[in-house]
């Protein structure tokens, strides 16, 4: 048996891993080093982390000293609030929609294509759309909410610290829901239709089919959607930068934006590196979850 000329694997790996090493791996390691670099001392210390965590200026604050009933609460808290509201909303709505679209709705292809638009467009445009829809003059929602009689909700949401963050979070449901629906719909294809038909024949209610058959079958897909949505929420930048820039009064800052503020406004690169490391540390548990899931 004549074997083909063996090509060394290195010839296939050289170009890709050169790119990755110089532009991703080296800077990741270096960022960790820089985050400990103390300009004043000229050596390494925890100074940057201490300064960053205890910063009090509205645009750079990570955790507010006192948590009032409305933002600014600090970028880290804003990220966590984002996760706490956005993830359940997107997962639950996504599941119900994927279920209804598959078994009950006519023209579901069109609806899925429409929902998907949110993740096709630039997130920066998404941010501007949020501002647009919640604008007092041109927006739809303040006008709708004006009928509730709550004065604040009939204003430009992104201009008031009490509601700006929630406008962004609601808007990010609009941007990201298509992801959940697409993943869940794809996963639903693998659920045997006979299971659901059988349940229907025996008179199971819609809710029963949904909660007892569909949700358990979709568990792996739910894990993916939850983890990817958490990661998306933690890294969020473009949407916030384009809509509010973190304002008003720091009430919509997020970690990635604080990192950018240190980098581009304060020109304090070492503190910027420290924020980047903090942001990454928070994502680590979720990255580990994905790795474990992929191994199975």
């Amino acid at each position: 048996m004549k074997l083909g000329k063996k090509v060394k694997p290195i010839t296939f790996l050289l170009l890709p891993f050169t790119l990755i090493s110089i532009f991703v791996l080296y800077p990741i390691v270096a960022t960790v080093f820089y985050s400990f670099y103390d300009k004043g001392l000229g050596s390494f210390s925890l100074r940057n982390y201490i300064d960053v965590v205890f910063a009090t200026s509205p645009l750079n604050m990570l955790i507010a000293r006192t948590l009032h009933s409305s933002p600014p609460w600090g970028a880290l808290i804003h990220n966590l609030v984002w996760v706490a509201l956005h993830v359940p909303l997107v997962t639950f709505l996504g599941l119900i929609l994927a279920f209804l679209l598959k078994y009950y709705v006519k023209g579901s292809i069109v609806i899925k294509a429409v929902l998907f638009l949110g993740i096709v467009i630039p997130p920066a445009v998404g941010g501007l759309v949020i501002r647009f829809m919640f604008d007092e003059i041109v927006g739809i929602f303040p006008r709708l909410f004006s009928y509730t009689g709550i004065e604040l909700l009939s204003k430009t949401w992104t201009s008031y610290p009490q509601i700006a963050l929630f406008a962004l979070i609601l808007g990010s449901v609009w941007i990201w829901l298509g992801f959940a629906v697409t993943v869940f719909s794809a996963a639903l294809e693998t659920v045997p239709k006979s299971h659901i038909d059988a349940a229907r024949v025996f008179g199971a209610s819609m809710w029963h089919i949904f909660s007892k058959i569909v949700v358990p079958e979709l568990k792996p897909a739910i894990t993916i959607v939850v983890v990817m949505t958490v990661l998306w929420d933690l890294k969020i930048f473009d949407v916030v930068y384009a809509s509010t820039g973190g304002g008003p009064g720091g009430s919509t800052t997020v970690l990635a934006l604080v990192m950018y503020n240190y980098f581009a406004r304060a020109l304090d690169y070492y503190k910027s590196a420290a924020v980047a490391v903090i942001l990454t540390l928070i994502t680590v548990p979720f990255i580990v979850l994905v790795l474990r899931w992929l191994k199975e």
Partner: protein
Amino acid sequence: MIKTTTKKLIKTILINAVIWALALLWVLPFIGLALVSLMPYRGVIVRGWLRLPSLDSLSFKNFIEALANPLYDMATGYRNSVIVASASTILPLISAALAAYAFTYLDFRLKAMLFGLIIVIMMVPQQLVVVPLFFLYNYLRLYNTIPGIVLLHSAWGVAWSTFFLRNYFKFIPKSLVDAARVFGASDFQIFRKIVMPLSIPGIIAATVLQFTWVWNDLFYALTFLVSKENQVLTQKLVMLKGEYHIDWGLLTAGSIITMSMPLILYIAFNKYFMRGVAGWGVRR
């Protein structure tokens, strides 16, 4: 019996109505952007945009202003975005196809570890590389240059598209590759003559996803492109927004210009987008 069927019918109609209303809510912002960009702004302020406009009042003035006025100059941004996104798609896809081939068909030391590394890179926040690259780019004179940002986007692109393409290559029957080996084909020949032609749908999916992802990026553009002649479209877009006063006519036109490319790609390659994402192809 009749009663239950009517009840069922009403339920189905209700569900359809609610879901279609939701879909309408989802496209409403796009309708709003289109109408406000074309309508005279004064009319929008007085009467809102949720109405049928008189056709002769519509104009492309906002689009021309956004593209051609040197203050906004989205035409230059468009050109830069095309260059950056194209280069940042071609380079990583070639690299990733090679890497994915090695990970699928070759054996080498540290294979599992390197692949794990690629998966980790896919999920690590982009913010984690900015500071050292800023120093390095200043030193290499790559800061504020198109090649600089292309290399950066390419490196990230290599990671996820290697993962994506390897999943695709795995579906190619291994017997085909083994047979070619037996007949004396080299790995490069197998790569070019067998694996590549059989993976065209996967490569198209990776191409449109990577192109769209780079096109949509704002964060890296903001951090690595500063001068007006190098800035890409997303940067030009956020600069249309004044600090206090917002000209929604201009901003909606700018938004439509900025998302025109991804939208066209999405319409042309719809199923590749959906499948790519369903197959876990998104990075952000």
